[in-house]
């Protein structure tokens, strides 16, 4: 399948390991990426604090670009996904509002008619490609990994903007894929909670407490890694984990994997190709388990 690819700012900024890992994995999955190089930031909910209409206009511009190509948009960030899904819902539900926004886009020769679908790679894998086909690409069975899922707020709430009723599989998609790589799912309450990143620079103590809470809870339940489809969650859960350990006085060691990295490792890519050495929390323990992994049987 072919998609208009929207990598988002963080996949190329704070989490530079995510972008190349995604390219390799998508190639294996047979997803042809046409990157939306001229698209702006979604606003990440921050711009929307100041002015929702402004955020909607920037996103409508991105949607119009994809619509012109006749392609669905694919994201690799829960926050981009959620912000775009919410904007798309407002633009699709209200023709008058869309017309108002299109007025702003006109000068650039763009118009959004309301027909673009926006899908995170997570959803593309379970819905469009199908778990069995994804599984057929795995060469390693990661049976020794016990993985806690961590979704990121924007890909779970508000449920009515995310198409859960038409696509019920979306809600457990991360668990489905963890099982598919042969690992054990460590279910925990924090999986749909907030990582704390939005207030990191505003109330660092609270933000870092959230990191401590989620990573230590998963650790206590026996997880040896956590996987997230959101690079913003990764920034906080990985980058601020040393600080979280210090602040909480708990010895936490929880390697955080990006979703494409987990897929890539099961597909046989090396930890280096997946950029694991760029993580703040060492992934050595995960790598050791991968070396012991059995070959996968499709």
């Amino acid at each position, binding site marked *: 399948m072919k998609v208009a690819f929207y990598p988002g700012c963080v996949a190329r900024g704070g989490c530079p390991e995510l972008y190349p890992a995604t390219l390799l994995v998508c190639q294996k999955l047979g997803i042809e990426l046409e990157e939306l190089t001229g698209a702006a*930031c979604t606003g990440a909910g921050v711009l929307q604090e100041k002015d929702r209409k402004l955020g909607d206009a920037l996103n409508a511009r991105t949607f119009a670009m994809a619509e012109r190509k006749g392609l669905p948009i694919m994201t690799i960030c829960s926050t981009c996904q959620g912000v775009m899904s919410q904007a798309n819902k407002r633009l699709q539900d209200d023709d008058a509002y869309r017309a108002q926004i299109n007025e702003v886009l006109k000068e650039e020769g763009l118009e959004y008619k309301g027909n673009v679908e926006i899908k995170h790679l997570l959803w593309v894998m379970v819905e469009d490609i199908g778990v069995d086909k994804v599984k057929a690409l795995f060469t390693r069975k990661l049976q020794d990994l016990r993985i806690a899922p961590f979704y990121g707020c924007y890909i779970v709430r508000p449920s009515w903007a995310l198409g859960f009723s038409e696509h019920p599989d979306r809600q457990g998609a991360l668990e489905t894929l963890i099982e598919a790589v042969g690992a054990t799912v460590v279910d925990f309450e924090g999986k749909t909670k907030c990582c704390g990143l939005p207030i990191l620079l505003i109330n660092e103590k609270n933000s870092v407490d959230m990191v401590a809470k989620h990573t230590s809870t998963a650790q206590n339940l026996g997880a040896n890694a956590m996987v997230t489809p959101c690079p913003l969650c990764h920034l906080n859960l990985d980058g601020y984990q040393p600080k979280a350990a210090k602040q909480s006085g708990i010895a936490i060691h929880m390697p955080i994997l990006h979703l494409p990295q987990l897929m890539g490792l099961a597909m046989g890519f090396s930890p280096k190709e997946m950029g694991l050495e760029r993580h703040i929390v060492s992934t050595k323990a995960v790598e050791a388990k991968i070396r012991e992994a059995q070959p996968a049987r499709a």
Partner: protein
Amino acid sequence: MRVTLDIGRFNPEAADPKPYRQEFALEVEEYYTVLDGLIHIREYEDPTLAVRCSCRASICGSCALRINGHAGLGCKTKLISVMDRNGRVRVDPVGNMAPVKDLVWDMKPFWDKIRAVEPYLQPEGPEPVEEYIAPQEAMLHLVGVMGCIMCGACVSDCTVLEVDKNFLGPAALAKAYRFVGDPRDGATKGRLKRLNEYSGIWDCTRCMECVQVCPKGVAPMERIMVLRDKAIAAGMHGTNGARHAESFAEMVKHTGWLNEFWLVPRTYGMFNLMNLNAMFAALPVAWRALRRGKLPTPLHPKREGAEHVRRIFEKVEGPKP
């Protein structure tokens, strides 16, 4: 219909007052709500089960509890819509508040925070002869917040309250919006000033839990976002939160995208001595990131089409005052 309610209970008068779980298997009608199930247990199985309710019609706000881990009204949720394949439903007291007994919780901290935002009209100037008149259009945006039934579901699931009990929280902040947004109120500036302080509007992490669980569509988080915008518009630029929002917008406006490198010093305030400590505290994190080759670059080239992004900003935001 067969259903099993798995209830998180607590009896403060027990010899060893610890939370425990108890299951009840019931035969109920398909139209039964979670509250109907609980009342059925209290009437026919165990009269000691404490549960609070009154209207049974999503009006009084008494029956908030956690259903399968998420807050909601017992009287608004049908059992059939929440039971799993085996007919099981997990019911617990709300989160972030102390249980009194079983599913009844202490509402005092909830009311204290509502009181803290002075939830009453404070008009300015001489009293009118008859009534305070407000135009219809100026009141419409308040209809949603006035629908709040003070059930506490939003407070139960707020992620910030889980780590910081001092945060004012979604219900109180939504109530604050109700008065800040009222054209008849004369205390707006003072209200905003207090909401702008620690534990106020900037401490919300935008997790949308409150938007998701509110049974009345109050959408507290969205009201908090409007309060933030109003605080900035009223000239309150001096918080990390305001600087964060403003520098984020500036960056996207001029380059089309975000650079995390510059967001840090700009949020802490480039030349703000008070915040030097916070800047230095960020250094170990930056150093670790640099060593792993993941510190965002200070170079921030414009994205393709950035001039259009800028034009959209100018068009939507209008001329700067």
